[in-house]
């Protein structure tokens, strides 16, 4: 990584909302063509890291070094999208060209660019469809298409597989892997340790602070996971890959008013 070209680096970044610090003294660097996953529990500051990388949230302390002219695109969680908003696939994707043209309608060059990016993602025939009339995988592709239309060097993704089934998770992961192989640097945040995180080349374990960073084999250890999630986990190995298992201890506590042995 030291020999690679750095796109963005957070150095000792502390920031938050109001007086509460969400990130404390965070160091994260992303190099060209890297594929980094940020994992951590809810409230760990994963989205805030993306926001700082994107430049839409300034740090209270520390600094952010960003390569001059770096093009960053952000793909939100599809669960946060207002699916009733009246936009067709083409209108949605064209939002990426917000600054390139004053006129409301798309130029011929823009229409060609939209067609190309939609064709690349296999959804060109859906361009006139409303965004709600698509399957989960197609919806995810629309927002990736919007990001790609801006020709980014760094793609930020917020929980790309949140609330999706196994088939769609594989579909999204293969798509991102393909984009990364073509040279796009990707940073995604996920809570899905086995489905996503273990398949990525590099992970950052975050819980307000960076707990560990490295390959899945290096960082997915019971000790790091307990420090990150505050819960006991075991790490097994399957086919050369780590598999994280919750260590759920059954505690038989007597509930007030419920007789012992009864099904409460």
């Amino acid at each position, binding site marked *: 990584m030291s020999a690679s070209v750095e796109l963005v680096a957070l150095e000792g970044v502390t920031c938050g909302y109001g007086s509460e610090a969400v990130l404390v003294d965070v160091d994260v660097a992303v190099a060209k063509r890297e594929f980094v996953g940020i994992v951590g529990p809810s409230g760990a500051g994963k989205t805030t890291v993306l926001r700082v990388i994107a430049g839409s949230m300034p740090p209270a302390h520390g600094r952010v070094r960003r390569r001059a002219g770096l093009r960053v695109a952000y793909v939100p969680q599809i669960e946060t999208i207002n*699916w009733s908003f009246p936009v067709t696939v083409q209108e949605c994707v064209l939002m990426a060209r917000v*600054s390139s043209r004053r006129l409301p309608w798309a130029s011929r060059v823009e229409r060609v660019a939209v067609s190309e990016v939609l064709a690349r993602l296999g959804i060109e025939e859906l361009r006139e469809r409303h965004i709600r009339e698509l399957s989960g995988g197609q919806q995810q592709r629309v927002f990736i298409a919007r990001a790609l239309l801006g020709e980014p060097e760094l793609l930020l993704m917020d929980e790309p597989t949140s609330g999706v089934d196994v088939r769609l998770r594989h579909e999204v992961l293969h798509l991102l892997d393909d984009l990364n192989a073509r040279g796009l640097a990707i940073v995604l945040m996920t809570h899905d340790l086995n489905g996503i995180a273990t398949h990525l080349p590099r992970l950052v374990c975050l819980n307000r602070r960076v707990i560990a960073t490295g390959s899945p084999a290096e960082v997915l250890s019971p000790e790091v996971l307990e420090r990150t999630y505050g819960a006991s986990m075991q790490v097994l190995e399957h086919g050369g890959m780590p598999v994280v298992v919750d260590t759920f201890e059954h505690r038989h506590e007597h509930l007030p008013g419920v007789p012992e042995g009864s099904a409460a």
Partner: protein
Amino acid sequence: MIDGLLAPFEFEFFRNGLAVATLAGGLCGLIGVYVVLKGMSYIGHGLSHAIFGGFAASALLGVNFLLGAGAWGVASALMINAVTRRRVIGSDAAIGVITTASFALGLALFAFFGGAGANFDAALFGSILGVGTEDVVAIAAVSLLAGTLIFLRYRALLFTTFDPEVADASGVNTARMDALLMLVLAGSILATMQVLGVTLIAAALVIPATVARMLTNSFSRMLWMAATIGVVCGFVGMNLSYHLDVQSGPTIVLVAATMFAAVFMVTGATGRRRTAALARRGVAPAWAD
């Protein structure tokens, strides 16, 4: 029959009123698209009441109504925008607090210093009797300005309305876009208050946009459809107002409501599904994680 329909066009006040109502309908229809999609339907109602406070203050201080009420409306709009953007309280609460306080102040000023009468009723319910050429020019200017701003900032306004967090991360100055929209909205309400009255402006903002949403899934089509529906409602409502001898504001709103009911029935389940989630707008931003 044709003679009867054309009879009111002999009167200058009617021609002026018709021009203002038609332009007001189109203007409110256009701005209403953003208002409805941002889940701020209540703002038309609230802001028109807030401007009423300025109207009362202007009447008592003897300053120009457009300047006094306009400044009051813009200040209220910017306050709502500032409070809403802090995300501590929702837009509905911000609108409720600021605009009802302003309205109450207007009522108190009238109660203390008098002044209730023709102007008071006209401000509340709209009247075409006082519409002069200067009102036609004013609303034409506001319509032209609003249309130009929306045309030139179409992409940024769409992005900000649909996906403010990503728009912000993509370099769009969403705070400026929200403020711009609020200023246009305040100007539009101010310009249309004479015809529609403060109590009915909300309907002129919300109904055409809602009808258009039932008819299309495309944002660009929704914009021109809502403006066209507003124009039709203004024109038809104003003519009916004369022939039925009912105030202009209620008649225009009733025409719009009839159109809503007709489209609601014709589009059936499809239209209802499109508009059902408008009320559920306000998806929680994920940034707070």
